[in-house]
């Protein structure tokens, strides 16, 4: 049975993530007034928010340490929060500020926090191979850290995903692949793009265990992930998990969602995962005031991060030309060696 302290941690992260997305939505849209203009306002670029998907983030990441690696896709904030990414610097990055995680160069789809081994990428399924690589590094170094790759249910038709499953399986890598099934890939419902309702069935072709958690219950995710992460940590190889979640917002901010039937929203809003976990907490005897305190603290932390971020300066344009390489372009040396090559090439 999950310890109450863990439930409370998960609850805190879920509330943090939910409030975070709602606040970013506000900040983002406010800036696009009067007519939505993607180039206006304090948050640049596209914005993919994950409200409704928190259970998948916290239920898995609760089992992870800082030295475990996580890769996330274009919808990364909830996972980043659950993995412990620096919230202030992440927010500053999303607002395109100098003190952002990536000095304003990456943005919301390309957040890197090496302190907790978190990274994301905006190309569908392409976070899977690097996660396999992190698992490979752990294996080669004989360490017991693990790697987790998140992806959407729309990403399970992409070649890189399959290749990564096979690569992880044949090398017994400590990797967990986590599919967040929110039923939609932008405007495409999942039945339009694959015949398989349960994405975890893809594992069968690789002799890898596949498991689906068919409702966005943080506790159920926690339990399934305990086995999957444990299997990886014990060097028993990879697992594929799929978790049913819900996309409460548009694909990106500004998405008119005209393709989406109304009841798709109502049904799912009813089974909200945060309410569910809150009910669990109550059932386990946690007081209302404790819950309220957790919630308030989480919300305060979000506000603080956003305020801090908005106070940060924008990057100096000249810094655009920095950070191309870790070493100078010439590599580790810039002096040519001197040898006397007999009749050789000099």
């Amino acid at each position, binding site marked *: 049975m999950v310890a109450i302290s863990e439930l409370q941690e998960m609850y805190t992260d879920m509330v943090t993530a939910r409030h975070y997305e709602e606040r970013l939505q506000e900040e983002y849209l406010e800036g696009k007034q009067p007519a939505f203009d993607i180039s206006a306002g304090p948050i640049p670029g596209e914005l993919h928010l994950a409200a409704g998907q928190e259970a998948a983030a916290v239920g898995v990441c609760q089992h992870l340490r800082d030295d475990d690696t996580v890769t996330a896709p274009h919808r990364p904030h909830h996972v980043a929060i659950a993995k412990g990414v620096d919230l202030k610097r992440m927010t500053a990055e999303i607002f395109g500020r100098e003190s952002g995680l990536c000095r304003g160069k990456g*943005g919301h789809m*390309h957040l890197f926090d090496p302190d907790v081994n978190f990274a994301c990428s*905006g190309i569908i399924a392409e976070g899977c191979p690097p996660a396999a690589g992190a698992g490979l590094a752990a294996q080669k170094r004989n360490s017991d850290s693990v790697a987790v790759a998140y992806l959407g249910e729309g990403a399970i*038709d992409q*070649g890189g995903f399959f290749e990564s499953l096979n690569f992880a399986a044949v090398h017994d890598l400590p990797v967990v692949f986590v599919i967040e099934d929110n039923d939609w890939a932008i*405007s495409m419902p999942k039945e339009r793009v694959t015949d398989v309702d349960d994405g975890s069935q893809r594992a069968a072709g690789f002799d890898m265990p596949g498991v689906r958690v068919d409702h966005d219950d943080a506790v159920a995710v926690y339990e399934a992930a305990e086995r999957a992460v444990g299997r990886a940590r014990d060097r028993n190889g990879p697992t594929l998990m799929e978790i049913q979640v819900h996309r409460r917002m548009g694909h990106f901010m500004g998405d008119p969602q005209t393709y989406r039937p109304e009841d798709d929203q109502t049904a799912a809003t009813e089974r909200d995962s945060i309410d569910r976990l809150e009910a669990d907490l109550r059932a386990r005897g946690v007081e209302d005031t404790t819950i309220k305190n957790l919630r308030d603290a989480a919300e305060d932390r979000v506000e603080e991060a956003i305020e801090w971020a908005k106070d940060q300066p924008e*990057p100096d*344009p000249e810094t655009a030309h920095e950070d191309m390489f870790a070493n100078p372009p010439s590599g580790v040396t810039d002096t040519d060696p001197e040898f006397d090559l007999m009749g050789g090439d000099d």
Partner: protein
Amino acid sequence: MSEQQEVVERELTMSRGMVEAIAHEMRANDEVFYMGEDVADYGGIFDSTEGLLDEFGHDRIMDVPISETAYLGAAVGAAQEGMRPIAELMFVDFFGVAMDQIYNQMAKNTYMSGGSVSVPMVLTTAVGGTYNDAAQHSQTLYGTFAHLPGMKVVVPSTAYDAKGLMHNAIRDDDPVVYMFHKRLMGIGWMPAPDGPKTPVPETDYTIPFGSADVKREGADVTIVTLGLHVHRALDAADSLAEDGIDAEVVDLRTLVPLDRETILESVRKTGTLVVVDEDYRSYGVTGEVVATVTDEALAHLDAVERVAMPDIPIPYARPLETETQPQAADIEAAVERTQ
């Protein structure tokens, strides 16, 4: 102006120009169909198929799984059977997941088969920055596609060109890569500059590939460019005119084939070349245009400047993207350096 010329007043956005050509060809030919992610109910993230689903239904405006290798390759296969697929790569930046189908199959099969096979397909794709979408969603990659042989590469800058080039692309029996700049489409949520909205004839017409268009005539300097930067160059030309510098603006319109004649003719006249490109500076469009001139008209060349995206991934924050992307002011400054 000849007597027979049709007078055109109706103005369209670039997206409407492009879509009108597609709809026309689909009506005329049952074998034309469109495949891509979110092209059906959504109408294309960048309005490339807006409204087509209603008329043609899901069979001919087909949503596909996020499997670019599979569906672009399927377009190659269907094209080799004689159909005329149009397949969309949502952002050109995603080419890396499907490049083998694009360049090793689509582009090469005609040649490798000694001409016994043809691949009459159009690959449409959105290009370009200006809205802070960062390194994986803002590139043009013009040079990357133009370098690899076997594809005709089209980059419209106005609604008029978009329509005529699309008619030619669909009717062409060869693979055509049709790169539309997001900022020019006239999408509601991404306001376009004024230039791309132009009069567009209701009738169908084809603009041949390899015919660059002199968008502004001038005597002092030749600015060669394409896509979004045609409009930035025209802005720069306007303000240069105030300083008494008369710039000619050449819109390449297609990179393959490249209209070397029009470039040469202009440089022979002005003696000065400024090449402007939204793609990365090195090993790309700017070098090729310069070498085109040195190949044939070195003696006529008094000054050259290149204005392009520096060789760095496109940064996210607004001041950084603006710094790296060529602005009208950068073009102006480059021209001034040549005088």
